[in-house]
């Protein structure tokens, strides 16, 4: 009966946690796929081709992700609005005891990540921002993801913005992962510090995994394949 009416605070928190975890799942899967760049062009381009050949399954995944992003953002907006309204008069002397920078900047880090995701899709998925880099084909005549990525990250601006967005994403995850355990009611006194530590370690691993790629490309550890300079 309560669920039919306006969703309660706790339902909204559960939606944040659940959709956050779905997005987290994507972030992990995407990282594993991206790391194939270290295995060379065949591995990465082959993986990209496999994804494209998933057909309906790819669309199911896309719809689930889109729904999760939508619900995550709409619920976040509603929570942020209510939370602002809950304290109309601020304290003259403001202080906090144990909250973290990451926790206080969830809305900002989320919004920056959202903006970056849109740019990222325009760049690598819709291939509109750097068309001269992103419509190359490999020896088999398939879309050359490998060279697209390598040429892109040779640009310092693309590298820097990517690393910046990932810094915020991983801050978001650092607070978000432990939060999800709390919001979904999985937490207790014994597990609270463990979830906190796990959230920190997992987001750090994810961070290092993602940013290693632009760094490896920019420093020349990963090179475009023979004959591959623009």
């Amino acid at each position, binding site marked *: 009966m309560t*669920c039919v009416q306006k969703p309660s605070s706790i339902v909204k*928190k559960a939606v944040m946690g659940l959709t956050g975890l779905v997005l987290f799942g994507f972030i992990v899967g995407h990282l594993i796929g991206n790391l194939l760049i270290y295995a060379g062009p065949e591995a990465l381009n082959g993986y990209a081709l496999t994804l494209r050949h998933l057909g309906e399954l790819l669309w199911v995944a896309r719809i689930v992700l889109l729904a999760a992003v939508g619900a995550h953002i709409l619920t976040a907006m509603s929570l942020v609005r209510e939370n602002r309204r809950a304290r109309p008069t601020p304290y003259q002397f403001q202080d906090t*005891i144990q909250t973290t920078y990451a926790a206080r900047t969830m809305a900002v880090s989320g919004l920056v990540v959202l903006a970056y995701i849109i740019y990222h899709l325009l760049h690598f998925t819709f291939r509109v921002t750097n068309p001269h880099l992103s419509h190359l084909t490999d020896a088999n005549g398939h879309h050359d993801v490998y060279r697209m990525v390598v040429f892109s990250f040779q640009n310092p601006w693309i590298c820097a913005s990517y690393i910046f967005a990932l810094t915020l994403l991983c801050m978001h995850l650092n607070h978000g992962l432990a939060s999800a355990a*709390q919001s979904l009611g999985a937490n207790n006194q014994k597990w609270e510090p463990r979830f906190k530590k796990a959230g920190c370690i997992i987001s750090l691993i994810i961070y290092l995994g993602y940013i290693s790629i632009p760094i490896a490309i920019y420093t020349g550890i990963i090179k475009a394949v023979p004959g591959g300079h623009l």
Partner: protein
Amino acid sequence: MNLTLKVWRQKHKEDQGLMVTYEAKDINSHMSFLEMLDVVNEDLIKKGEEPIAFDHDCREGICGACSLMINGVPHGSEKGITACQLHMRHFKDGDVIYIEPWRARAFPVIKDLIVDRSAFDRIIQSGGFVSATTGGVPDANAIPIAKPDSDSAMDAAACIGCGACVAACPNASAMLFVGAKVSQLALLPQGKIEREQRVLNMVRTMDEENFGNCTNHFECEAACPKEISVQYIAQMNREYLRAAAKQ
């Protein structure tokens, strides 16, 4: 010691209110924070000014009446105590101390440092009890309760309803208060019978009273004079999600 106080003064609910500066002179370091305010008030009365209104009752940390935001922290920055248990020896001569009321839409200021906390009462009225027909007192230990459950229920029951959790929360959320009560009763056999309706009703009232939503800063736990753990919020979330799924 001599101190400078910056105190929120507000004549009544509709008054704008403002911070007023007072000098607290010759304060004995053995005084409690409230006794220090008593001294300042005596001085104000002598001068024919309106004394500073603040809530207090037991002055020994058990009633939850005192409710002062001291330098941005509920009950001051000493851990695990109420403002009435805070001694002036924790301050230094010449300190400037900001004293403000709890700030939350759900806790409107009535006068100066006193806020209306009846929103908490309405949350309790909506489910924070066990319905029982009256009769003789049951025998002790007639209903066996596992030690970990009774310990956990006791820890939750330590809540004195002061509202420091709401005051400390960046979102003015009451989830630690509600979580403690929901968990305390759900842990005990007498309270288990109504556990589902209780959590649904109490959370609905909490939302209707315009408290904010928890975003897991855990400031509440750090500010709580009874050091109640945020695990009770997770427990309430569990209770609620299970009850809502059943309905």
